[in-house]
């Protein structure tokens, strides 16, 4: 990264470097994934991991049932969920920062995360008795669905406030997002205040985020929307670049700005809603990853978006390894790790770039 950041390309065309960075990030992601599969209280060296995977993929019976369960049913879905959510949060951050033309914009800022969190807390605190009478699958499903709906509703309300006659004022949207986030946060705090001890434990876990509890079923629900947004994101790359000049300028360049803004808001609501639903609120990924990459490969979204997805996935998996190792066999909520690594790192970037990046 430091090598990449050392100097701008002499002619100002950083695409070659960006492509190299994409390859490096993909390699990094594979390495981190392998490390994550081999890490845990139950010792499984990388060679053993590969053997079990090969047997599983080829459909051969497991040499050791426990090992297979640990790897295939516990670590693998957790790994893949972490990769998806990390990619989703990072790309959502990059898109929102492009939309708001502000490197400090974050999924949390437009209230999506707060709304999703509120949905979840509502279910935990008020829905317990109601859910107890329903089958287990409903209990598992209710929390994520509520979080998704909460995040989505917040975004729609936000959009309705900020959009007039087909035009969205970014300033209004930003301010409305802060107000909505504060409102959702206040209700959440009130509910937490009223919660029982048992509920509180679950709430803490939720508000700090965690990849624990990943299953193939959750993965199957989370993967399609997130992968769809990742796959379609290159279509809005040029629009996001043009938007940096300003809305009028982007329109002059032939971009349908109103459509672009709707697409961004929708895409962000989907990936953040799904992410919060399955892993809780995980901060700093959406803000640190795109910022770092802009310094290394430049702000062009054609490469920034896929690079953000790769680095976000790698970062979250890496953070999850730390979560599982520090207090093993117990584990830390992942939001603590991303905040502890992310916050000082982010501040140091800001201090160093203060004169150059117009905040």
């Amino acid at each position, binding site marked *: 990264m430091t090598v990449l950041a050392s100097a*701008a390309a002499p002619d100002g*065309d950083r695409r070659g470097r960006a492509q190299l960075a994409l390859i490096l990030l993909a390699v990094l992601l594979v390495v981190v994934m392998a490390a994550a599969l081999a890490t845990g209280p139950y010792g499984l060296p990388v060679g053993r991991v590969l053997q079990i995977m090969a047997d599983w993929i080829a459909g051969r019976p497991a040499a050791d049932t426990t090992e297979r369960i640990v790897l295939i049913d516990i670590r693998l879905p957790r790994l893949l969920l972490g990769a998806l959510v990390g990619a989703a949060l990072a790309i959502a951050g990059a898109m929102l920062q492009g939309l708001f033309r502000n490197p400090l914009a974050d999924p949390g800022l437009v209230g999506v995360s707060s709304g999703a969190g509120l949905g979840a807390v509502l279910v935990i605190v008020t829905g317990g008795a109601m859910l107890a009478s329903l089958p287990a699958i409903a209990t598992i499903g209710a929390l994520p669905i509520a979080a998704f709906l909460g995040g989505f509703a917040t975004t729609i309300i936000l959009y309705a406030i900020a959009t007039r006659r087909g035009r969205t004022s970014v300033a209004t949207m930003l301010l409305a997002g802060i107000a909505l986030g504060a409102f959702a946060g206040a209700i959440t705090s009130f509910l937490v205040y009223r919660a029982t001890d048992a509920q509180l434990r679950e709430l803490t876990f939720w508000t700090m985020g965690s990849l624990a509890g990943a299953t193939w079923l959750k993965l199957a629900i989370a993967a399609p929307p997130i992968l769809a947004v990742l796959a379609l994101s290159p279509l809005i790359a*040029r629009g996001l670049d043009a938007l940096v000049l300003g809305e009028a300028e982007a329109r002059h360049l032939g971009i349908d700005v109103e459509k672009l803004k709707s697409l961004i808001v929708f895409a962000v609501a989907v990936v953040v809603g799904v992410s919060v639903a399955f892993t809780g609120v995980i901060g700093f990924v959406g803000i640190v990853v795109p910022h770092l990459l802009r310094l290394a490969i430049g702000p062009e979204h054609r490469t920034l978006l896929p690079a953000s997805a790769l680095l976000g996935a790698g970062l979250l998996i890496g953070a999850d390894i730390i979560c599982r190792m520090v207090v093993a066999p117990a584990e830390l909520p992942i939001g603590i790790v991303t905040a502890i690594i992310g916050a000082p790192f982010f501040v140091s970037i800001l201090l160093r770039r203060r004169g150059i990046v117009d905040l």
Partner: protein
Amino acid sequence: MIIAEDLVIRAGHKRLIDGISLTIEPGLVTAIIGPNGAGKSTLLKALTGEIKRTSGRITIDGTDIGRLPLGQLAARRAVLPQASSLAFPFTVHEVVRLGASDRRGGSAVNARVVAALARVDLGGFGGRLYQELSGGEQQRVHLARVLCQLPDPCPDGRPAFLFLDEPTASLDLRHQLMTLSAAREFAKGGGGVVAVLHDMNLAALHADRIVVIDRGRVAAEGAPPDVLTDALLAEVFGVTLPVGKTADGVPFVLPQAATAA
């Protein structure tokens, strides 16, 4: 050709543009001048399709400007904004390349970017960060971007149009002249240029046609010597100022000659 007919733009109760009919012809540089708040920028924004009109019609080669898909419109007209800061660290090369709609063009697009930068006297600036440039240099980067958007003033035999909003505002004299000569060149190639200018002398020197806007209406239009007269300066700008003429017959105005109106 861009034709505006009975253009009215209202903001609340105020008529910013109050019935303007105007023809923008290819091959000419048209300068729009007028006192502060006369509606020059509003008129420019209407002509570029940026703001909606209350009533009236604007057509580009017979097609209503609102009906033209944005992508097609972008291939036919470009707009030079006032320089502004960018939130992200784009290089000069990357900003100029934003003008090119074909982002995958590789070496052809690169050559276009390099040529546009050379045209605005910023050769070798491609690798610099836009944010680190001076205001005047940033202004020229945008001019290069606009030239990169319309590399051909007359693509497929149909004229393209360049709209410049106070293009010389933050430039030194040398680059004021350079900017207007780039505009001249564009018109000579068959395109049309519309520039909002504050400097009457630059307008007189470089424009084929001057349109004077006052209180949302056209106060005068025509060739510079016909438009820039003592009477117009008194009536529209409220200054009593004798208009001079160079040996070539180009009118000029010297503020030193002003007497209280």
